[in-house]
């Protein structure tokens, strides 16, 4: 498997350097070394470090305490919160994204509306983070523009007991980047619906409803489920928005990691952060694998 099959596969342009044929298989691979070394140092080693550290105590000895610590009541509750925030924002974002996407796909491809919404969606999908948290504090925070306005017009207390800094606040804020992301990833699937399929169904006597439930929905289902999974992973791993919004407390897993890394809440159990990070890798990996599988199924029809 070493050099020979590779030299055979080399294109004819190599003939002038035939004298160096012995190196031809190995030498070009050396060109990849800087890149590979970089990836190993700054991505692979930290990831392995997390996986190993999850099973070590502070003295470096093997322990399963960190991982079993993931199953105590507080941690399970935090995991549940994370799943709720990611799940609800993914499903809501998915449905609303499909609504928006189908409205703009109905417009002609060259229309200003369609091009504008597409451009805006791809920008807003990247807007998660500190700035977004501040935008929502400015809107529905204690002194937010909308809160103050409603207080002055009818005395409605939008701020309430600070729901913005809890699970449902996170869902609302996450929707701001989840909906545009859904638009971006789902529009190719919608565009893949061939007009011929609709014509075929109609010419066989299908009503609009029958076309939708019998043809369009089954065809789009894998793409929809896949996109929702992508949104789930996107929200599950998001840190910056939640961290800027919720400065105290750790209602979701990423904030629990912050507590483990920075504060004294988990003093003496810093390695719990490694275990939570490992939990996160596992969840995201499962979700992304399912996403890849669904995407492959979706691609069978929609290309």
């Amino acid at each position: 498997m070493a050099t020979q099959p590779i030299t055979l596969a080399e294109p004819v342009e190599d003939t002038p350097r035939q004298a160096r044929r012995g190196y031809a298989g190995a030498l070009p691979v050396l060109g990849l070394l800087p890149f590979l070394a970089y990836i190993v140092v700054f991505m692979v080693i930290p990831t392995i470090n997390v996986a190993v550290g999850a099973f070590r105590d502070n003295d470096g000895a093997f322990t399963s305490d960190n991982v079993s610590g993931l199953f105590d009541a507080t941690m399970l509750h935090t995991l549940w919160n994370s799943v709720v925030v990611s799940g609800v924002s993914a499903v809501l974002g998915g449905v609303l994204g499909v609504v928006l996407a189908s409205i703009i796909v109905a417009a002609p491809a060259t229309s200003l509306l369609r091009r504008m919404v597409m451009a805006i969606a791809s920008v807003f999908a990247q807007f998660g983070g500190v700035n977004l948290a501040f935008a929502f504090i400015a809107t529905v925070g204690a002194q937010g523009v909308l809160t103050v306005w409603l207080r002055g017009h009818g005395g409605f207390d939008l701020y309430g007991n600070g729901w913005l800094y809890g699970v449902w606040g996170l869902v609302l804020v996450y929707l701001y980047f989840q909906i545009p992301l859904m638009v971006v990833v789902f529009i190719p699937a919608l565009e893949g619906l061939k007009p011929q399929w609709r014509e075929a169904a109609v010419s066989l006597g299908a009503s609009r409803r029958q076309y939708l439930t019998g043809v369009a929905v089954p065809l789009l289902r894998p793409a929809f489920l896949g996109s929702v999974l992508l949104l789930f992973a996107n929200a599950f791993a998001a840190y910056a928005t939640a961290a800027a919004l919720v400065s105290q407390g750790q209602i979701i897993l990423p904030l629990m990691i912050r507590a483990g890394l920075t504060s004294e809440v988990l003093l003496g159990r810093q390695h719990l952060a490694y275990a939570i990070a490992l939990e996160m890798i596992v969840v995201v990996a499962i979700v992304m694998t399912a996403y890849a599988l669904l995407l492959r199924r979706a691609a069978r029809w929609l290309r």
Partner: protein
Amino acid sequence: MTWVGRSVRGLVLLAFAVFFLVPLWALLDLSTKQVVTGGRTGAHWKALVENEQMRSAIITSLELAVLTVVLMLVLLLPTMIWVRLRVPRANRLVEFLCLLPLTVPPLVIVVGINGVYSWVNYFLGGSPLTLTFVYVVLVLPFAYRALDASLSAIDVTTLAEAARSLGAGWFTVIARVVAPNMLSGVLSAAFIGVALVLGEYTFSSLMHFDTLPVTIVLLGKSDTGASMAAALATMLLTALLLVALSLLDRRRSERN
């Protein structure tokens, strides 16, 4: 379409527009508001350059953006061209590695990076600019896609063969023949890199470096107006970069 359908559609679009624009408008409103009198003021926006802490954070983030883009290009561009020309069977591997940061969240990397950064700090000192190294990993998937798209649009092999047959070395082929032909891809990768670095919070906050987003959060309590101004400014700059990016993409797809 009936007028009912049309107006329902219009109302739905309006609802979306309200949801997406009101938070931005709220940022603008609060960042220009005089707290005491309730009038308008530009003081918070002036603070972006006058507040020492804010100004140095902006400079740090801009420096990081430039360094990250440069290092990313130096690392990725020659590797990708080299793979196309000389080691095509490594194509899938490089793609897999470049897209990997999408599945390994930054938060996970930050938990495990202590060991690596104690070496970085040992060699380079504890400057915030050392964040460049992890930021390159962060922008890798997006940069890869941009570069890959423009690399696929040109006939790399023919270009390289032509240059080689005229006596060019591999360095000349990569740096002076192929790379200049990928200008739009390089620009796209640079824009998305800058946009991501300017908003990056996970690494910088947990590794305790004062970048712009960290400072925005820090000043959020004491100087809310300035924080809001900085947040809006960053969002507008990001939007500008990403719109420029989509224009580049469109020009490329029109040419093909």
